[in-house]
């Protein structure tokens, strides 16, 4: 109860401070202004040359985001194992002894601190670091995306693996499985749908990532969108938004397809 009250008070103060007001939003005339703005986006730019450029940018975007995401998954996956809070009395202090217990938790906090660092250092700063190392181009962009995404995926994976039905974890552990095996036999199969959901979503985010890529001269569709927007070329913006929506819809459909298979596949699915 107290928690709810605190939340409401903090929210109230914040709302006032940010001048939040729905009346402002729904004032007469606003609808008109917005309509005018949105109408300005129409029609999308359909100049063949521009469309061809966009197609190239889409391919580039997919490539960069794919490599960045794949790298992140590869690193985040093992790292997340350290960042999982081990539940179960095997890991209790009385059981492990203080020294080992402290070691275990130090590792845990260390892993989480690293993940926080990866996320907390802004992508642009990562980009700068990688530029000093490898120069301009798509590579520093890919690496910046990868490091940042590692921080995100590592944390989310860890919390997802941690939330898995503990009774099944106990069951697998009872066979003498190592934690890595618990991951493969229980945590991953049990959270596969959410795992896919997260991972594909991160891929989608990396597709939309605009700022970093333009920053290091990597290109991609998001960069072009920011440029077109800054130049008030709203018809181009419209086309680019459509292109992004297509990419997002494709990832969404791929996700649904995979998740349906994982969740509902009748029998013999993994044979």
């Amino acid at each position: 109860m107290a928690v709810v009250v605190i939340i409401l008070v903090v929210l109230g103060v914040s709302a006032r401070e940010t001048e939040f007001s729905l009346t402002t939003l729904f004032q007469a005339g606003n609808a008109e202004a917005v309509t005018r703005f949105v109408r300005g986006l129409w029609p999308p730019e359909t100049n063949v040359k521009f469309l061809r450029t966009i197609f190239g940018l889409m391919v580039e975007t997919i490539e960069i985001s794919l490599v960045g995401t794949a790298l992140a998954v590869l690193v985040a996956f093992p790292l997340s194992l350290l960042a999982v809070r081990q539940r179960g009395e095997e890991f209790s202090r009385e059981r492990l002894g203080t020294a080992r217990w402290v070691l275990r938790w130090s590792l845990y906090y260390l892993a989480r601190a690293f993940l926080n660092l990866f996320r907390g250092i802004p992508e642009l700063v990562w980009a700068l670091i990688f530029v000093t190392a490898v120069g301009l181009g798509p590579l520093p962009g890919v690496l910046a995306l990868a490091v940042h995404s590692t921080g995100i995926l590592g944390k989310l994976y860890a919390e997802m693996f941690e939330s898995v039905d503990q009774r099944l974890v106990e069951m697998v552990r009872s066979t003498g499985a190592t934690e890595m095996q618990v991951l493969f036999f229980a945590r991953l199969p049990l959270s596969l749908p959410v795992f896919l959901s997260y991972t594909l979503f991160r891929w989608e985010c990396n597709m939309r990532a605009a700022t970093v890529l333009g920053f290091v001269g990597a290109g991609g569709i998001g960069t072009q969108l920011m440029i077109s927007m800054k130049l008030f070329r709203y018809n181009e913006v419209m086309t680019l938004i459509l292109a992004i929506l297509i990419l997002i819809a494709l990832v969404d459909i791929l996700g649904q397809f995979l998740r349906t298979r994982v969740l509902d596949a009748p029998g013999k699915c993994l044979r």
Partner: protein
Amino acid sequence: SGQAQETKLRVGLIPNQSPDKVKAQYEPFRKYLSEKLNMPVELFVAVDYTAVVEAMASGKLDVAYFGGLTYVQAKQRAEIYPSVTEIDRYSHTTKYHSLIIAPANSPVETVADLKGKTFAFGDINSTSGSLYPRIMLDRAGIKVPEDLKQVIYTGGHDATALAVQNQTVDAGGVEDRIFYTLVEQGVIDPDKVKIIARSDPIEGYPWVVRVGLDKDLVERITQAFLDMDDPELLKLMRAEGYARVSDADYLYIEEEAQRLGLLRK
């Protein structure tokens, strides 16, 4: 010098106007430079200065095209010096100007009228889109950001011009050459935007090289710029020709930037 012989010249560009498709647009320039120097040239186009400066500071770029302000800022990060700058097609000198513009129907007539108004700068690092408008505001007794209602960084001159034309902001600072080009192109309607101030002449955008680069090669690069006479290429480069510049030419910018807080002392 001291660094090994370069096998490839890496050139960084920050599009100071429409940055899209810049790489393709600059292709003739790349070819020209490559033929002149008899070595491969690679272009990198980023939408922001920061990464380009850092790339130069760590020896990942050899040559870059900076604004005056960016150059003096970059000097603090990287060992670099300017070699040439372009001769402007409008002023026929190496100098150009910054403008403060406002919507045509606005009551604002002078810079001093801008107190308490919303003002748009381009990129914060832009010489003509940020530093010189600040100098003009400062001379009119307006402190940034205290004396303004709101400060917006649009990220580019085109954006600033359009923001003013659309009356999203009360005024903005732009580079004159870009403004006129926009008018020429019909992007900006001269009836909707008025110029309320014009800055002192600004020293042109320098082509900068890093100290580590072979002196011989730098001389050949400089010569390549000075020798440029193909009208098509010059048009592309928005220049009439090129002239040598030195660090001293940017002293005023450096001092003013320090005074106005855009550069650390």
